[in-house]
């Protein structure tokens, strides 16, 4: 494998929640290679957004990084100065969010917002800035460039706002795009358009992407590799094709089985119980209270993440390297 663009090792984040501290991320390992699209998937509260925020040092108090490293383009991000990390955000790693319209400045046109970014990062002004802005709009397939550049966010649809956000993100030529639930608020027909756009950007620009989502279908559709999170840990990571064909971790298996499938009755008993409170994490494997195959070992000790096959990491004492029951 080529040297990763982004390499997260043992990232641990705690939130001060008096009287103690709640551990919301435990030893997260994550790699993104150049021009690779990686999916980070999990249910609400599993820590997937916190991972992205911690990587970019955007965590707010009471949350803080208490361990691990984040290397990006051979630089350690956790120890960079505030000024240096600001340069990495945008130029190195750009981020887009779930609510595109709210992420844009409501009182500036799309063109003005692009102009600000281009002036600041590339020193582009006037006609050259205009040309670059039009180029970016074309890149994200925004259609009628002149109209879009003169439009305010409220005049554009949700999908167009998300395209404009992507154009803004691309303005600084980042090497990695982090998309946090970027298609969740969109209609499925529009979601498909955005996913296809992201795929084309990877092909044409070699843009690496980390797609954070709760939607397994989006991951399957768009990602080459997948990391599944549960209770602040990556429980399984694998090439997407292999993960969907044969999930090895019990959580992944049940998560896949729980999805509604066209024409099948609902799988009601997929995962009993609910996600643990980070202040009262179960002992041993955090999934054991909900696991259908938990053994005494699972309650007593914490499984390490092991590479059971090339590129396939599983954090489980009893992984099932067999085809899944689903489908």
């Amino acid at each position, binding site marked *: 494998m080529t040297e990763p663009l982004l390499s997260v090792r043992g990232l641990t984040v705690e939130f001060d929640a008096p009287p103690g501290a709640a551990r919301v991320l435990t030893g997260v390992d994550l790699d993104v290679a150049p021009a690779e699209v990686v999916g980070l998937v999990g*249910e*609400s509260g599993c820590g997937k957004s916190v991972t992205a925020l911690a990587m970019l040092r955007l965590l707010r108090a009471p949350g803080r990084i208490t361990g691990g490293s984040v290397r990006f383009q051979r630089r350690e991000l956790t120890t960079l100065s505030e000024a240096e990390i600001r340069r990495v955000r945008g130029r190195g790693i750009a981020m887009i969010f779930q609510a595109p319209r709210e992420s844009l400045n409501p009182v500036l046109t799309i063109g003005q917002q692009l102009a600000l970014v281009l002036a600041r990062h590339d020193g582009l002004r006037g006609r050259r800035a205009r040309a670059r802005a039009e180029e970016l709009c074309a890149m994200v397939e925004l259609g009628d460039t002149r109209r879009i550049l003169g439009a305010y966010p409220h005049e554009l*649809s*949700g*999908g*167009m706002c998300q395209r404009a956000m992507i154009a803004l993100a691309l303005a600084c030529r980042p090497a990695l795009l982090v998309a946090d639930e970027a298609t969740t608020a969109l*209609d*499925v*027909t*529009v*979601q*498909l*358009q955005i*996913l*296809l756009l992201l*795929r084309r950007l990877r092909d044409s620009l070699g843009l690496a992407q980390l797609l954070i989502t*709760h*939607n*397994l*279908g*989006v991951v*399957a*559709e768009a*990602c*080459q590799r997948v990391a599944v999170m549960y209770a602040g840990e990556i429980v399984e990571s694998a090439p*997407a*094709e292999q993960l*969907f064909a044969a999930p090895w971790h019990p959580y992944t298996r*049940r*998560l896949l089985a*729980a*999805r*509604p*499938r*066209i*024409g*099948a*009755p*609902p*799988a*009601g*008993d*997929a*995962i*009993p119980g*609910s*996600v643990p409170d980070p202040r009262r994490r179960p002992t041993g494997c955090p999934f054991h209270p909900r696991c259908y195959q938990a053994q005494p070992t699972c309650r007593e000790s914490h499984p390490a993440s092991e590479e059971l096959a090339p590129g396939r990491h599983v954090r489980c004492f009893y992984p099932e390297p067999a085809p899944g029951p689903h*489908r």
Partner: protein
Amino acid sequence: MSLLAVAELSKEYRVPSGAFGRRPLAAVDRVSLRLREGETLGLVGESGSGKSTLARCILQLERPSGGTVTFQGRELTVLAGGALRRVRRLLQMVFQDPAASLNPRLRVGYTVAEPIRLHRLRSGEAAVRARVEELFGWVGLGPEHVARYPHQLSGGQQQRVAIARALACEPRLLALDEPTSALDVSVQAALLALLAELQSRLGLAYLFISHDLAVVSTMARRVMVLYLGQVVEEGPTAEILGRPRHPYTQALLSAVPRDVPWAEPARLVVRGEAASALAPPAGCRFAPRCPWVLPRCQDEPQPLQPVGADHGAACWRAAGGELPIWRA
């Protein structure tokens, strides 16, 4: 006889436009549907399709601007006051956002007991309390949850309370408005299974509303697809999913993410996004995005036409049998 018959139901809002003017917004446009006892009708549509407004108009939580709603042979649109309340007990609704659908200042046991007391479905406090616990049991909650406040429950538990409240009315029909879309996958699966079980136990009719075709397909034998307030296709679920005839249904089905990573996009990708219901296209409302649009689609809306056994689509090309049948 149908339990529920909706004919030509329309809902028009008057929204402010410009400094002083108001113009009409047709949120629901001449929708007709029928539902028998114990049956489920799936209503599929994206944002702005009018599916929630339609449900609220059927329950008279909003008054329709036109059309009729007949439930057990009685016309609901002309009822008001106590007469409406007595009939509406039989039609209940479950909302999308479980936290917002429960009064934050009331214990959930009180919320579930309220309809029992209002309609005097049990007499005596002990009987009411026993009934509440029974309902909690039906939806998979324990007696220990009765005294909780909504914020002390998880999203899935809150939605179970909302279902228990609806069942407390002893309804014949439940309108389920995106009941699982705010929940995680595992919670969603359990809730859908619960709804299926309740239906077979109580013989309830469901009006199941969702933007997610896969979810609808697990619950409903019949599906109706809405686009900008109008029905574009309706028929048996298997037909709609297997041989969708309206280009919008095809696009919707095509857009559902699949498990084959980096699959070649043998996809029907439609342009742009739904037009504003404020200025709907004159002809077919899907025409501006349709890959197979004809000149006549721009100015002549096509009514729902039979395109197969018990299967209708509102499309000139589909009616003429000249549309490629897209397969999932």
